[in-house]
């Protein structure tokens, strides 16, 4: 009985680990020392009329998960130095891209 239990526990542990990290957007933002604080995003979100669900560092970008006024779920990437809104996704669909910005 010991062995199957152990196998099952191992299998379960394996099952519960996430497969891969997503988000391959590059912001080319340079050294972190020059970045504005993450909390500065709150103001940007407020200007957009968004409610912040979660703000985090993703690679060399700031990433914001938010809700628009109508409740749409959006995922937006901001430049950590200029705080410019670079690209916005809605459920994997690109809905906004700043002029001249290439995500890769």
């Amino acid at each position: 009985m010991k062995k199957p239990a152990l196998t099952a526990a191992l299998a379960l542990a394996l099952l519960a680990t996430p497969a891969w990290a997503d988000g391959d957007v590059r912001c080319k933002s340079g050294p972190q020392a020059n970045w504005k604080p993450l909390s500065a995003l709150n103001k940007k979100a407020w200007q957009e009329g968004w409610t912040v669900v979660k703000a985090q560092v993703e690679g060399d970008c700031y990433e914001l998960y938010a809700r628009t006024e109508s409740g749409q779920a959006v995922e937006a990437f901001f430049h950590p130095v200029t705080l410019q809104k670079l690209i916005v996704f809605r459920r994997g669909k690109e809905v906004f891209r700043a002029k001249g910005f290439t995500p890769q």
Partner: protein
Amino acid sequence: MPLRRILLWLLLACPAALMLEGMASGRDLPMDLLHPSGEMAVRLMVLALLPGPLAEYFGTNALLLGWLSIRRNLGVAAFGYALLHMMIYLVDMGMLSAVLEEFALPAIWTGWLALALMLPPALISFDRAMRRLGRRWAQVQRFVYPVFLLSLLHWMLLDWAWQPALLHLLPLLVAWSLRGAHRDRLQRKLV
């Protein structure tokens, strides 16, 4: 219910319990649990789909027999995690109008369709229905193939990453090719 089955279900319920506890305690945001719950559903589907073709190729040994004997439980558990995934999604969205509004996005309706297609096989997963429906029962269980592919599509469209989906398809592709090779050999023997 035999003790083994109870233990199996306790084990299968552990990740769900952790997720619900994380959400209730505020440790995890609902949106952070979307991935784990969805991935559990997909992985349980993989586990339910593997023993069939493997048993056909390797013949039945103790391991595969044991695995086959819990196959239905794994399938029902996959449905359970898909339901949990949907509930977490609804909690995360908060507004029904927002849920309806994004329903038509390809990344979203593929998920809903996968869940809807899981419903019939899950609803007839008990012994009596199995005996009653006979061959039809097995036919309905095959819904899992489109469900699985739709789930992978749902995942790829949301994340724009094909590696995780491929990674989950890989063991099945291997098992299916083994089964295919085995069937070919059998056929040639018969001719």
